[in-house]
């Protein structure tokens, strides 16, 4: 079997040649290295620009705030550091020998002041970095700050059904997004069946998002990478931050354990619908729903070279109902529960290797579990019986990985590493029993496989104009039935044009070793993860993209134009009429492999993004023109069709304006052309579901025709928000009032056919849309105790 094609060897050869060429031509230089951190908290600042005064050559800090800068030796140089949201930093240092220079950045207290930075490193990758504080200004449904819904406002990112947090990147499915929280993947990040994402923005420090140009260190999903880093907790002082909203409240506590050595952060959020309903429920009936999430992190600076982090995340939702019926001679108790939740735990060790190397080693565990429970207990004078039905589905990973950054020279930054992941799947486990009849039944499916990945990449600076990044990731999946070996080349070339314009072209291949079976396409908690098998091979995608970025002279303004084309293979879908589990169904013994079909897809489009991240007015304008096409042999007679979340145009305007130190206004407006769904376009009559029992019984039959051929009306919505800030002796507070869907647009959540049997002159069928959200006002109180 031919594993490597000739092109892979050619590619590897080119990398090796370029590496030796530049290494042998390197000059004598010194190395400045160290960490960039926030002065008030001691938290490290990722992706900060570190350079030498009068130059735009320099380095960006890595995800842990570490930098290594090679500069020509001399008497002294002036180091300049800048990062969005911080004051410019300058320091004169000796350049006679290698040195460690720690950089403490001061946060910009008010956005009224614009910080002008002339020396900075212009990133050449397509990484989209979002500021958590900026996202907190975006008005949101019921005032729940939502990182993932904020992403839906970016070009190339599409939302699904109105109000839901699932997101679709460049035609990919909801499962094709790698969501990492402190290095651990989160399989399902939803609260309230997907209405809110399960991340508390108060606990998040850094948001990095890739739609293409994926670094080789990321793998396992086809369409995007969302890398979230939790805050580390202030090493200088205790702080508290929180908020009280209509649906939930949140509280974050952070502070030093040992000053400048160790710190902690604990952040929690809980809804209280169940607590509000409790007094109004009769004693014998309890119906409740709640969700909560909890983030916790400890970090310990062992010495100047070593740092340890322990972080954990727990998110759960529970819908429960309990009924008790008591009669003179009997008592009957019924309990139903529906719950789901994610757990992650991460242990990380950062080690600095000399002045140029940095290693991060991580062990993590992640788990997602969905469960349903139904119990009935009956007691009479003479008997005591019970009946139960439990169902659960879960997926979990254990992983050990190590990533090394090595700043080899001014031309080369090397990254390499490896990862082992043990995947566990329990797609269905259920048990049922009835003590009255003595019946019991138990079914449990369990599958396990192992993923091993090795990668290396080199960011190579040829000269002032040209940069390239070569990466190769080898991913292997070992399963009981068949092993899969998948090389994943990654390549990007950046060309700097005059006028602060960077043109990047990228090609990446990605593989996905897990499938999501979805009844709804909504990314709901009831969707089930299933493993790769011989019958369901890994999903694979190739994407080519071209991106043009213009950095304007006015700070914080950039324009990005991207065009892409993506080919997806081995994507999965249910066959027509098949489903695995849906709300209201009993669990069933269905061999899931026989009910799915394997197909392919492609997507292509062009995106525009104009961002302004500094000054009184911040925000962005995003526009996407895109197409997505799917084709499955067992669907739509094998003909291609537009999937449900294909939208032709997508426009979003997001803005925040700081009127004064006390008042901040915000708004966002979105417009999407209608998506494509299957909805009836004709109706008639035919045999109904009792066909084999009573052949005379006819019913109305609706016909949708070509799959997803009904285009829904366009969607648009305006959200408004206003914040009133006030400084207090103990810190600061602000009130926020927001209006979701401020002009009461009726955007349809779903469509159905409605029959009017009483219509004069014959039966009439109409297609109707139902709207879930009219205007949704909300108010919240937010506070921070302690200095920024």
């Amino acid at each position: 079997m031919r594993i490597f094609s000739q092109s892979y060897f050619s590619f590897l050869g080119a990398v090796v040649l370029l590496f030796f060429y530049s290494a042998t031509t390197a000059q004598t230089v010194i190395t400045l290295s160290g960490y960039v951190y926030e002065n008030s908290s001691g938290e490290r600042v990722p992706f900060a620009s570190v350079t030498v005064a009068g130059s735009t050559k320099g380095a960006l800090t890595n995800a842990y705030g570490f930098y290594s800068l090679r500069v020509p030796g001399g008497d002294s140089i002036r180091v300049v550091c800048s990062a969005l949201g911080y004051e410019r930093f300058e320091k004169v240092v000796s350049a006679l020998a290698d040195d460690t220079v720690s950089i403490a950045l001061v946060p910009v207290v008010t956005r009224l002041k614009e910080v002008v930075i002339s020396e900075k490193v212009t990133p050449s990758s397509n990484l989209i970095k979002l500021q958590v504080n900026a996202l907190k200004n975006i008005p949101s449904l019921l005032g729940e700050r939502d990182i993932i819904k904020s992403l839906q406002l970016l070009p190339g990112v599409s939302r699904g059904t109105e109000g839901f947090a699932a997101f679709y990147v460049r035609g990919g499915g909801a499962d094709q997004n790698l969501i990492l929280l402190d290095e651990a993947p989160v399989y399902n990040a939803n609260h309230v069946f997907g209405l809110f994402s399960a991340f508390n923005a108060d606990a998040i420090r850094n948001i990095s998002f890739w739609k293409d140009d994926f670094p080789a260190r990321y793998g396992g999903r086809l369409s995007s990478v969302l890398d979230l880093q939790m805050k580390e907790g202030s090493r200088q002082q205790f702080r508290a931050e929180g908020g009280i909203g209509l649906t939930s409240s949140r509280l974050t506590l952070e502070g030093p354990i040992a000053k400048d050595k160790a710190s902690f952060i604990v952040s929690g959020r809980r809804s209280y619908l169940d607590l509000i309903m409790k007094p109004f429920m009769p004693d014998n009936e309890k119906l409740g729903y709640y969700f909560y999430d909890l983030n916790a992190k400890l970090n310990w600076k062992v010495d100047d070279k070593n740092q340890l982090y322990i972080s954990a995340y727990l998110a759960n939702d529970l819908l429960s109902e309990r009924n008790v019926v008591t009669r003179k001679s009997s008592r009957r108790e019924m309990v139903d529960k529906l719950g789901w939740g994610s757990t992650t735990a991460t242990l990380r060790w950062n080690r600095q290797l000399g002045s140029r190397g940095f290693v991060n080693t991580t062990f993590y565990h992640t788990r997602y579990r969905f469960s349903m429970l139904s119990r009935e207990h009956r007691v009479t004078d003479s008997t005591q019986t019970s009946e139960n039905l439990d169902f659960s589905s879960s997926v979990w990973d254990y992983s050990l990985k190590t990533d090394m950054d090595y700043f080899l020279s001014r031309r080369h930054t090397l990254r390499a590493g490896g990862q082992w992941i043990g995947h566990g799947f329990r797609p269905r486990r259920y048990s049922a029993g009835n003590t009255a009849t003595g019946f019991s039944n138990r079914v449990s499916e369990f599958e396990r496989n192992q993923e091993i990945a090795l990668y290396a990449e080199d960011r190579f600076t040829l000269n002032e104009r040209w940069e390239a990044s070569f990466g190769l990731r080898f991913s292997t999946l070992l399963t009981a039935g068949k092993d899969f070996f998948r090389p994943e080349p990654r390549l990007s070339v950046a060309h700097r044009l005059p006028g602060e314009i960077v043109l990047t072209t990228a090609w990446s291949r990605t593989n996905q070793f897990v499938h999501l079976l979805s009844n709804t396409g909504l990314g709901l908690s009831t969707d089930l993860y299933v493993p790769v098998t011989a019958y369901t091979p890994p999903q694979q995608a190739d994407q080519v993209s071209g991106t043009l970025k213009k950095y304007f002279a006015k700070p914080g303004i950039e324009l990005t134009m991207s065009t892409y084309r993506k080919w997806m293979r081995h994507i999965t879908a249910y066959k027509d009429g098949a489903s695995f589990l849906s709300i209201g169904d009993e669990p069933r013994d269905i061999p899931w492999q026989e009910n799915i079909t394997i197909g392919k897809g492609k997507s292509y489009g062009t995106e525009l993004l104009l961002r302004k991240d500094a000054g009184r007015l911040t925000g962005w304008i995003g526009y996407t023109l895109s197409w997505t096409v799917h084709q499955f042999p067992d669907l739509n007679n094998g003909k291609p069709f537009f999937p449900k979340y294909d939208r032709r145009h997508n426009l979003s305007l997001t803005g925040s304006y700081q009127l004064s130190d006390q008042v901040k206004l915000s708004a966002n407006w979105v417009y999407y052309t209608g998506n494509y769904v299957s909805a009836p376009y004709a109706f008639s009559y035919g045999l109904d579901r009792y066909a084999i029992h009573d052949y005379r019984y006819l019913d109305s039959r609706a016909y949708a025709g070509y799959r997803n051929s009904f285009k829904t009306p366009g969607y648009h919505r305006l959200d408004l928000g206003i914040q009133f800030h006030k400084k207090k002796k103990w810190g600061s507070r602000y009130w926020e009032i927001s209006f979701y869907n401020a002009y009461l647009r009726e955007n349809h959540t779903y469509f159905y056919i409605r029959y009017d049997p009483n219509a004069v002159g014959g039966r009439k069928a109409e297609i109707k849309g139902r709207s879930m959200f009219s205007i949704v006002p909300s108010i919240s109180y937010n506070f921070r105790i302690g200095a920024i």
Partner: protein
Amino acid sequence: MRDAWLVLILALGLMSCDPGVEVQNVLVDKLLSVSAVVSPRDSSLKVYVFRASGLSKRIPYDMLIEKNARVTISDGTREALLSYYADTERYECVNPFHDLEAGSSLTLTVQTQDGVTATGHSVIPPKPQLVSFTHHHRNDFLVYELVWNNPEAHKYFQAWQSMEFATNYYPGEIRYLKNSNAIMVEPEVFLWDRQPGGINIIRDSVQTNPGRVGPAKASFTLANFEESLWKYIRTSSQYDTWLTNAEESGILPVFKEPVDVSNNIKGGFGIFASYNCTDSLIVKIDAEPVAK
């Protein structure tokens, strides 16, 4: 920036060369709804044919009945011509295919006078093997066990064509199977998804009804379905449930997209499929429930 705009225009130009999908839908006035379910045991063949109506139009039911079509069912060598009967509002003829073996194909063709043609194709599934029934009484329940065997070579969808207990038992809910769980569409319709080969066992119970007295017996008829028929019944049921919730603002449709009713008619929509069932197994229940 001029270069940037050139790149963008070039990208847009390249993309417009690929429109993605060409949707092909039959015009409403050329659309037929055809439905027929056949079994080798049937004495007659019966086919319903309707015209379709567009949405938001008021059209009486009888105006949609297609009365002048040529409707035939063929097994490749023989062809049965069905005639329209006004009293039953469908096409019928005597079933000439009693002798067809499992695996035989039938083709339904409907041709209207204005040139519309719709066709359906069906393959007769094998007759399931007979079911054995054992039972005993426990507390207020009749506890029973039903066993039947599916050959490895035939993984067919199955349902109880009939399942009746005598009047002194409440109808039960069947949940527990060795190989498969039932979906109870309605109290009298149990559907099973594709069955694995081997022995299938149901162990369940029905509660006795002391207030009723009747003959102590039960009867069962098991049917093998074509996959298309199973999906038609299953998705019809799902769609009806969804629609009820949608019209009554229930909570379920909020979380579910509409279900497409499965169709297998080319040139139209509806169902043409077959099933095959056992002779009725009538079982005498040999002991009365234990009196309290």
